[in-house]
C-alpha cells in the first residue's frame, strides 16, 4: 500500500463530535486489518476550544499518536478557521481537505476582540496551502438527515466517498450501526450516506 503511515487530521471546535468521528474511522480501519493510532485532545479544550484528532493508519508498524508537522495527508475540517489553523501546522502541498464552511464564532470574535474573516478568504487561504479543497455544507446535510449535530458523520461519509483512504464504506457503515445502536442508527447512517453522495457530486474549489 503505502510507505509510512496515512495521516488524517480531524479538526473542529470542542463539542462538534471530533472524537466520535475519529473513533468511527479508526475502528473501521482496524476492522479492515490496518494498524491504527489515534491521538486526541480531551478535557478543557472541549469547552469551546479548538480540538484536533490525529488518526494514523499503517499496514504493519504502529506509529505514535501525534502526526509530525507538515505530514497530514488528509484533513477533515468541521469548522473553517480551525481547518485553516490545522493546515498551517500539519498541511503540505499534497494534503487533501474536506471542510464544512459553517463558522462557529469564538468568544474572541463575539466580544469584539478579533474579527472573523470572510469565509471565502478562509477557503482561499486553505486552497493556497494544499492540493485540493472540497467544501461540503455538512450541517445542512445533517439537518436533512435529522439533526445538525451529525455534521461530523456527514464528513466521515464524505471521506469514505473519496479514494483518499483504503477504508471500506461497508466497514464504516457497520461501525456506525454498532456505535449508534442504542440511539438513532438510521439517522446517522443517512447522514453518512448523504456525505458519500455529496462528495461524489461536487468538485474541489
Amino acid at each position, binding site marked *: 500500500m503505502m510507505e509510512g503511515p496515512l495521516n488524517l487530521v480531524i479538526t473542529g471546535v470542542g463539542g462538534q463530535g471530533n472524537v466520535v468521528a475519529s473513533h468511527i474511522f479508526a475502528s473501521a480501519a482496524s476492522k479492515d486489518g490496518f494498524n491504527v493510532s489515534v491521538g486526541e485532545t480531551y478535557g478543557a479544550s472541549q469547552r469551546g476550544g479548538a480540538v484536533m484528532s490525529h488518526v494514523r493508519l499503517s499496514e504493519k508498524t504502529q506509529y505514535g499518536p501525534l502526526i509530525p508537522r507538515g505530514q497530514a495527508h488528509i484533513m477533515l475540517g468541521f469548522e473553517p*478557521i480551525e481547518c485553516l489553523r490545522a493546515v498551517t501546522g500539519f498541511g503540505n502541498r499534497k494534503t487533501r481537505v474536506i471542510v464544512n464552511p459553517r463558522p462557529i464564532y469564538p468568544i474572541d470574535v463575539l466580544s469584539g476582540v478579533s474579527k472573523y474573516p470572510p469565509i471565502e478568504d478562509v477557503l482561499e487561504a486553505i486552497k493556497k496551502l494544499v492540493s485540493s479543497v472540497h467544501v461540503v455544507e455538512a450541517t445542512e446535510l445533517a439537518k436533512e438527515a435529522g439533526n445538525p449535530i451529525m455534521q461530523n458523520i456527514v464528513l466521515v461519509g464524505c471521506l469514505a466517498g473519496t479514494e483518499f483512504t483504503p477504508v471500506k464504506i461497508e466497514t464504516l457503515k457497520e461501525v456506525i450501526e454498532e456505535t449508534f445502536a442504542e440511539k438513532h442508527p438510521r439517522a446517522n447512517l443517512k447522514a453518512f450516506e448523504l456525505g458519500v453522495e455529496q462528495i461524489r457530486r461536487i468538485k474541489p474549489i
Partner: protein
Amino acid sequence: MSYIGIDEPGKRMLLMGNEAIARGALEAGVHFCSGYPGNPASEILTTLSDVAKEFDSYVEWSVNEIVALEAAGAAAISGLRALTAMKNLGADVCADFLMTANLSGTKGGFVLVTGDDPSAHSTTSELDTRNYARFAGIPLLEPATTQEAKDMTNWAFDLSEELEVICMIRTVTRLSHSRGVVTLGPIKPEKRSANFGFQDMWTSGSSRITCMLHSILHEKLKKAQAKFEESKFNWYVGKDDADFIIVTSGTGWLYSLEAVKLLELEEDVGILKLGTTWPLPEKLIASHLRHAKEVLFVEETDPFLEQNVKVLAADLAIEGFGPIRFYGKKSNSIRGEFGAGTGELDVDIVIQALTEIKELTYVPTEKEYISKAQELLSSIVPSRTMSFCAGCPHRASLWAIKKALKWDGRDGIVTGDIGCYSLAMLPTGFSVARTLQCMGAGIGTANGFGNLRRFGLNKPVVALTGDSTFYHACIPALINARWNGANLLLVVLDNNTTAMTGHQPHPGSGVNALGQSSSKVLIENICKGIGVEVQVCDPFNLDEAVQNLYEMLQTDGTKVMIFRHACPLAFPQEKKVRVYVDQDKCIGEECGCAKFCTRVFGCPGNIWDYEEGKAKIDETICNGCGFCAELCPEEAIIIEEVA
C-alpha cells in the same frame, strides 16, 4: 457483556490507553478500584465501573485521591487486588499515605496509576509523577504503547504481590487518550475473600521500626531491579554497538522511532527503550553505555531518566566507561515552546534535537510554505479561547458575582478553584477570578486574604468552588475560616455533577460510580454543621442572586452561598424550545444595549449577524435555557415552545 470485558484472548481491539489499563486490571483479576475524576485518568475508573457488575468487582469514586488510595490500600492488605487511578496532581493529594504505604507494605497486588499531563492541556501543573516513585522508593512502570498499557497493568499486580509493595504505573495524556490496536489476553478472575484481623498489623511504625521497614523497602527494590533486568518491557533496537543511542521511555519510544526513520538514521542510531524506569535496570543500561559515546534522553517533562542514568554513569566511570556526552533537557536539546523540561514531546521535537546534535538539515515543508502559513495564521485566523457551554449556569453565577462586587464597590477579590469554573479567570467568566492553583486552594487562600485586614487589606473576599471540589478539599478550610475568623464568602457553584472531567457523580448526586442509588451528603447541611451562614439560590434568578450576594458581603464573617443549577450537558432540559431574536426589537449596537448578549455575556448560542447588524441565536448550539432572554434589555429574545 460490555466489550472491554470480552473473554477472547488473542482478539485485536482498538482501545484507548485508559481502556487498555482497565483491561489489564481485569486480566489481572482486580477486585477493588478507587479514584477521583481527573484528566487524563478518568476513563480508567469509568471503564472498570461499566463492567463491575459482570466481574463482581468493587469500583468507587472516592471523595478525593487520598481516601481513594487509603481505601484501596485496605483492600490490598486484606488480600485483594486493588487499583487506584488519578491524575498527576492527585498524587500530591495522596502523597501522605503513599509515603507510609510504601513502608507498611501490601498483601494483595496494589497498583497506583497516575496520569500526567505534559503541556498541562487540562491541568494547572506539568508535574511529573515519576518522581514520586523514586521519592517513595517503589517500582515504576511506564507504558509506551496501548498494548503495554494493558500488559504492564496486568503484570504490575503480580509484581506488587510478589514483592509485597505498592507499584506505580505512570501514563500521560497522549497515551491515556490515544487509541491503538491491542491484542487481548486471557482474563483470570480469581475469587478471593478479604481477611484482616487482630493477628494482622499494617503500619509504617515509627523510630526504629520505620528505619527497619525502610531497609526492607530497599531490599524489595533490589528484587524489583533484578526482575527488571530481564523484563520484556525493556529493549534495544538498532546497531549493536552504536556510538549514538537514544534512551527513552513512554511516548518517547514511538516518537524517537519515527524521528529516526524520517531522518534516515536507522543505521547510525540505537534506541534503548525502557519500560521499567524505577529502579533502573542498571546492568542493561550499562551494557549500552559501554558502547555509546553520545546519549540522547527522550522522555516526557522532567529529566528523570536523564538524571538517574547520569548518576549510574558516574558510578560506572571508575570501570572505564565514557567519556559520554549526554543530551536531553540539560543540554537544551529536547525543548518545547517555552524551553527544555516543559511542554509535551512530539516527533518534531526529537527531530529538532537530532538534527541539531548531528548537524543535519530536515525540512518537513519548504520555508516558503511555512512563512506563508505563518502569515495566514497571524493575519486572518482569530484565536479561540475556551468558553462555558451554552446554557452553563456558571456564566450566570459569575455575572451575578461580578455585579454584586461592583455594587459593593470595594474592589473585592475572587479566588478560583479547579473545575469548569476555572474558566472564571477568562473572558467567558468575565475574568472575575484572579487566582487558580489546586483543588481547594480557592477557599484555602481566601482564609489568608480574609485575615489581612490588620495589614490593610480591607475588602470583600469571595472564594469559588464547585460541588465536587467542595467535598474533595474545601471542608477543612471552611472549618478553619470559622475557627480562625476569616472574613470570606464561599460561593459553591453546584451544577450537580463533576463536569469538567466527564460528568462523574459525587457525594451530592445520590448515585455512586456503579450507578446505584446512594445517600446524598448535602453541602448546606455540612455548612450548617460547621456553623456558618449558608444560603441556596438559583443563579438563573439573577436579581435575587445579586441582591443576596450583595447583602452577604455587607457584613463580616464566614459565609456560604450555594448557586445551584444543574449542568445542561449532564441534565439536558426536557422541554423543547426554539429561541430566536426578534429582529425588529433588537437594537444591537445602539445605546441601551451595545451588543450585550454577544459582546459581554458571551454564550456561544448568541451570535452577531454582521450584515444585518442584529443579534441572532445559533440554533445548533443554543440549548434553550432562556437566560439571555431575561437579560435582553429590549426583551427581543423570544422563547417558543415546540411540540
